């Protein structure tokens, strides 16, 4: 059965191409005769659907199509030439390039579109479908019908249906027009909107159905814009979440204010860069980024543990001094990196599976690396919550936060817990650095741009509440992106800062405030 269908299909193909071949050969001599004849020959070639017509038309477009004195058409190739009809090599002596005028050019454009519609290459077909759609010309109806019958890729089929609708709208049949208007209304694109507006101006009788379709398009466009803003906000929010999670541990849970947190983020990004350089040229090179995740975590966690044991623990209970001290540490780290790596940006390459743009359903575009960062942010958040809730260290951490002295009497080594908690928070900053290396410049002052925002996230969400940090980060990210089109990126930031200050008036302890004794600590 399958074989039978296949042979039928092949027979059909042979038949169509056999018929087309005649059209192709008879059309050729018209090229270059006069502008009018050239144009009609181009149209015939377009209608023939013959793949050889494509190379002829492309040569015409590039100015390499030649016509000899006795009316043969040659395809110029470097110094020599090929006879377009027979495919045999032919001398190009005395051949003149076929000239174009505007009429030929427009015929050429639509003919190229027509031929490409039938091309074996899927991307070429998709582009051609878009071009035919934009031309919205009734002459294409039959061609699109043929292409639709042959097309197997659903996405291109969808494009062709729209193209058909656009062509029918320009065509003579009233019923087809009405259907076309509905189809275009469902399309929800700005191009469909323009085509409909043009049709409305041309034919007042269609105004009523077109208006219905237009409102439908406007509504779906608005939805899409909102969805896109939402996705962008989510992406910014997940970046903020990653940067703020470490702070939520060190500042939120431990109550230690670490102004060097931004520098830990920066160190994480440099660790990613170092891993990439170390693996350059080895078979592991494409996996540099996943391998950088543990490396960045361990490096920043180790530095964090050193900082806590060496300095911060002497300042417990003196938050203002801790703030100044850690700021100084951040300064030293930043300057050390600047001297070690130079002040210029370092490039961290995205692995191939993170490049490119993803088209979400509904036509929402999103770069792959943003999507990965959102996933990474959610994953890290879940891991942190799980670590605090289900691990031994998490339990001890909570115990020490709730009542240090009783925890100590229960045999918990509070000093060790402090160091590990701080190391954990710092390691999370390192993870944020890995993520940021994909979307921001890896430079010594990478962290300074995020530190204030991260603190705002923690304060807004509620100090000590991881869930608050999640909600705070995503809310701030989305608010920022919603405001941006109206106010510009900078003013949006200013608005958000002012809004947070006002918000803290109403809820000084943030969105998700700790209640009871822990809140007074």
């Amino acid at each position, binding site marked *: 059965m399958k074989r039978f269908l296949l042979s039928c299909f092949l027979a059909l193909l042979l038949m169509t191409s056999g018929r087309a071949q005649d059209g192709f050969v008879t059309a050729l001599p018209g090229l270059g005769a006069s502008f009018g004849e050239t144009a009609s020959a181009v149209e015939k070639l377009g209608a023939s659907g013959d793949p050889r017509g494509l190379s002829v038309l492309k040569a015409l477009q590039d100015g390499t199509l030649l016509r000899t004195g006795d009316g043969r058409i040659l395809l110029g190739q470097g110094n020599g030439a090929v006879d377009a009809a027979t495919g045999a090599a032919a001398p190009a002596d005395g051949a003149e390039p076929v000239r174009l005028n505007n009429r030929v050019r427009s015929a050429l454009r639509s003919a190229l579109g027509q031929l490409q519609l039938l091309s074996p290459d899927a991307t070429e077909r998709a582009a051609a479908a878009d071009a035919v759609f934009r031309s919205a010309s009734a002459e294409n109806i039959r061609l699109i019908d043929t292409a639709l019958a042959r097309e197997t890729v659903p996405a291109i089929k969808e494009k062709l249906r729209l193209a058909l609708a656009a062509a029918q709208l320009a065509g003579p049949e009233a019923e087809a027009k009405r259907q076309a208007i509905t189809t275009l209304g469902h399309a929800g694109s700005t191009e469909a909107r323009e085509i409909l507006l043009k049709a409305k101006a041309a034919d007042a009788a269609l105004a009523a159905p077109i208006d219905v379709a237009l409102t439908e398009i406007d509504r779906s466009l608005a939805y899409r814009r909102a969805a896109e803003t939402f996705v962008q906000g989510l992406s910014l929010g997940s970046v903020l979440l990653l940067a703020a999670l470490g702070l939520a541990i060190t500042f939120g849970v431990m109550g230690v204010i670490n102004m060097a947190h931004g520098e830990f983020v920066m160190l994480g990004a440099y660790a990613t860069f170092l891993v990439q350089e170390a693996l350059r040229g080895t078979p592991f090179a494409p996996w540099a980024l996943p391998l950088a995740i543990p490396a960045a975590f361990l490096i920043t966690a180790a530095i964090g543990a050193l900082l806590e044991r060496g300095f911060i623990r002497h*300042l417990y209970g003196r938050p*203002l001094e801790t703030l100044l001290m850690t700021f100084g540490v951040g*300064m030293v780290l930043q300057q050390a990196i600047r001297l070690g790596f130079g002040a210029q940006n370092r490039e961290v390459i995205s692995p191939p599976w993170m490049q490119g743009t993803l088209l979400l359903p509904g036509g929402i575009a999103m770069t792959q690396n943003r999507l990965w960062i959102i996933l990474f942010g959610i994953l890290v958040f879940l891991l942190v919550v799980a670590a605090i809730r289900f691990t031994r260290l998490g339990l001890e951490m909570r115990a020490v936060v709730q009542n240090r002295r009783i925890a100590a009497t229960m045999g918990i080594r509070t000093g060790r817990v402090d160091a590990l908690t701080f190391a954990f928070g710092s390691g999370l900053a390192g993870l944020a650095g890995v993520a940021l290396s994909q979307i921001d410049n890896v430079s010594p002052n990478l962290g300074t741009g995020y530190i204030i925002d991260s603190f705002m996230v923690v304060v807004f969400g509620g100090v000590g509440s991881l869930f608050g940090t999640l909600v705070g980060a995503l809310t701030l990210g989305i608010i920022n992106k919603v405001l941006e089109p109206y106010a510009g990126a900078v003013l949006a930031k200013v608005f958000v*800062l*002012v809004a947070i200050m006002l918000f803290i008036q109403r809820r000084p302890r943030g969105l998700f405030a700790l209640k009871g004794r822990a809140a007074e600590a």
Partner: protein
Amino acid sequence: MTPAETPTPERGTARLAFRLLLMAAILSLAMLPVLNQLPVDSALHVSDFIVSIGGKWITYAVLALAIDLAWGYAGILSLGHGAFFALGGYAMGMHLMRLIGTRGVYGHPVLPDFMVFLGYKELPWYWLGFEYLPYAMLMAMVVPGLLALIIGFLAFRSRITGVYLSIITQAMTYALMLAFFRNDMGFGGNNGFTDFKELLGMPLQTANARAVLYYASLALLLVSLLLCWRITASKLGRVLVAIRDAESRVRFLGYDVTQHKLFVFVLSAMIAGLAGALYVPQVGIINPGEFSPGNSIEAVIWVAVGGRGSLIGAILGAFSVNALKTWLTTVAPDLWLFALGGLFVAVTLFLPRGLIGLFRGEKRA
């Protein structure tokens, strides 16, 4: 009444020595521009560089004093005092821009160059009046004062204290920096104000103008020092210290903590604004970079190094850290940020009372 305040003979002499030292320091500061007028080959000649940098440092010292009043006495660690300083500087900058007149590149009689460049047709309303120096000086106090009043009112009313207040003030100066970078704010955007020509009819590049600005800064320093002294020695000052050490207890004793803190915060912002106003003509430029959070926190470290809770300490800190900065940035520019970062760490860990604590030999933090 603490036992330390009963005058013992040793303490009396120490105080006398301290006062003499202070007098000598003020006198020698006052002498600098005079010595600058001596012939260059004289042994006592002081170079132009010293005078101009001295004037700059004095305005820094005033800023340090303002921070110390809020932090050292009332426990308000503002990481946004650089914003008050910069706002004062912008007020003066606007006055200086107006005085350029037709000497600008475009030669417009009213509009500063950047406004002509950006296609302004007339002066924005908030620029009106800045051609008068007294008005500009008033604004250099009023604008930072108002901002401090609003931020302080919102923060102190909801009992935002400690590091939360620090972060909010830091966010404030950060937001202002972003805002002032914008061209359509009408403050020169990225480039700020520069190419000033004259002040009070004196061309700014002359020794005469330098000396006048120097003495004005010194006068501002002395007046603010006396004012802060009066405040900290009064009952008000004692309440402030009590708020610093046990805010809730003071509140329960019936004092209006919010008002006390608001008063000292606003006053401190106004002093910082005036310092900024005198700073700008001496350095000849003001741009949004002055709002950067790093500037504010650097000023805080002057106070920490000198000794917070001591007015003289704040001034001492501003001078010594800036002396170190000037020296290191010429000798080994790469090391300066290490040194500054190291200062933050060393002072908080080992010198909680700052340099002045060393002199006083106090042990307790």
